């Protein structure tokens, strides 16, 4: 991978982190409402994954979507504006944290019914197959989502119909407060693909370069073989499930252990081992991410609320 791409990935990871940290502050200040699920700790997964796609490859994910949105090229401004419910947000302030999308960036939404977007992902791929192109649909979801029927129905049709879907399970070890062991018959989610005869693998989701390599191979396979593939990324969310999680289900020691394994720190160390990248360059990128986050907050705060006419718009196409 060339230097420019590596530095871009670093920038995105830091930007996601900063945007979400500011988001958490704005939530505490009452400027963001509803449910907000932070991606902090998991940034390597979507960053590595999306870096491996072609722009024509589609992306669809669950409600933990701020990071994916940024990786897909949605600006921090639009993400922040959506969080604040402003008309300049990705969804005109009508979707909020859980519902970021940009058809232009081939990002088909954050979806908040657990597992509900998996059959829709199969449909995106069916649409591409029908239209005779070889776009790949990348569908991300949590470990918890693999216990609901939607997952199994979607995997089955994707295999039966030879759909180009890369199923990516972000196994962050918990669905809300329920650990994988307490909710899933198998603790390696990738095993679930076996029952459908689907190729699969597991990758360290804290290592963005490992994710990138695994995703690259998987996408190539899906595209060339016209078959789905299940990639499991093992990761961890550093914060609560959503804002205001009492976190009675896990120990501080466990959280600390994972935080010491910070994907941004790991990537920084890996980059510094490269001869052509300096600490000063990375510091400069961090400062830029910080500044862009500040600009995004200012943009969002200054943006107008959606007008009352928006309330009745888009219920139907003709509105």
């Amino acid at each position: 991978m060339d230097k420019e791409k590596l530095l871009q990935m670093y920038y995105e990871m830091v930007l996601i982190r900063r945007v979400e940290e500011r988001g958490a502050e704005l939530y505490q200040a009452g400027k963001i409402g509803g449910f907000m699920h932070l991606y902090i700790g998991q940034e390597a997964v979507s960053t590595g994954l999306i870096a491996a796609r072609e722009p024509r490859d589609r992306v669809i994910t669950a409600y933990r979507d701020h990071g994916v949105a940024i990786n897909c090229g949605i600006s921090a401004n639009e993400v922040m504006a959506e969080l604040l419910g402003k008309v300049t947000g990705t969804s005109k302030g009508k979707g909020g944290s859980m519902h970021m999308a940009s058809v232009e960036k081939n990002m088909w939404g954050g979806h908040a019914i657990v597992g509900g977007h998996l059959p829709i992902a199969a449909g995106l791929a069916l649409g591409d197959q029908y239209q005779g192109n070889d776009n790949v649909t990348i569908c991300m979801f949590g470990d918890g989502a693999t216990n609901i029927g939607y997952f199994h129905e979607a995997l089955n049709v994707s295999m039966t119909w030879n759909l180009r879907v890369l199923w990516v399970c972000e196994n962050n070890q918990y669905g809300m407060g329920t650990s994988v062991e307490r909710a899933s018959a198998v603790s390696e989610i990738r095993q679930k693909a076996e029952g459908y005869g689907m190729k699969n693998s597991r990758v360290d989701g804290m290592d963005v370069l490992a994710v990138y390599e695994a995703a690259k191979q998987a996408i190539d396979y899906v595209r060339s073989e016209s078959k789905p593939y299940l990639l499991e990324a093992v990761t961890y969310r550093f914060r609560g499930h959503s804002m205001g999680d009492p976190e009675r289900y896990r120990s501080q020691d466990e959280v600390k252990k994972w935080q010491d394994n910070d994907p941004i720190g790991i990537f920084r160390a890996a980059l510094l081992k490269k001869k052509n990248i300096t600490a000063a360059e990375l510091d400069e990128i961090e400062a830029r991410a910080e500044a862009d986050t500040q600009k995004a907050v200012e943009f969002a705060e200054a943006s107008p609320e959606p007008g009352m006419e928006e309330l009745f718009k888009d219920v139907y196409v003709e509105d």
Partner: protein
Amino acid sequence: MPRITMREAISQALWEEMERDPAVFILGEEVGVWGGTYAVTKGFYDHFGPQRVKDTPIAENAILGAAIGAAMVGLRPVAELMTINFAFSAMDYVVNQAPKLRYMFGGQFRIPLVIRAVGGGGRQLGATHSQTPDAVFAHFPGLKVVSPGTPEDAKGLLKTAIRSDDPVLFIEHATMYQVRGEVPEGEYLIPIGQSKVQRPGRDVTIVTYAKGLELSLKAADELAKEGIEVEIVDLRTLRPLDMGPVLESFKKTNRAVIVEEGWRSYGVGAEVAARIYEEAFDYADAPILRVAQKEVPLPYNRTLEQAALPQVPDITAAVKEVLK
């Protein structure tokens, strides 16, 4: 009489019924270790143990299907849906299995099942997570649908629901857990299928339930300052619907406003208005009005969401309109 919150009332009902009957058990997402997403079952897991407070995977069909099966062989499951919106992921069990199995098999089974579900808008959760689809469920014979508006009713009705031999959908409103009210000392039950006058008045009848009750009581206070005395009839149960107190009140006031949080079209108000017209047409002095949610999915933006939901001024305006 002790004053407790809606949350405490529901929690007490569950606790008392579990102490009373070992066949009662709870299952659902995050009901155990977490203590319930809305903290209703906090402390239950430690006291009753993992078998009676059963954490489940995110699998609404498995939760409800298994609850129905367990009920058929003699248990009394209280299945919790984290929100009523997730009932749509398992709609078959809620409306197509639980309400029909007994009838279809000639009365051979009993299905003593309670489905607790949290509904309602106003929390900026976006379109799929903010619904008040109570009327949808009330459409189906074989299912009882209860939705209380006070802690007293919540406790008494939930205890009855747990003892009911038929499936009951018990709908709680997400923004009402902190509502306080007096509850009777000691054990009491409130029958399912009885409406109740929550505030007497002579001028206009307001028919409502759940969140609508909270809003209507506020509207009534404001109207009283202008000398308008509304009578509020709380349905409490949507199916079977008890029209007795509604008709009695309407025959006295000759005017009615129906307040519900769900959408107006095909809603609770439509049913209640039709029944009033059918049974007390001659008493009407003005067309019955409905106050309900605007016909849009709920948006995230707070201002827009509040504009879509029924508010106190909508109720006072409707009351004045029927008085014209």
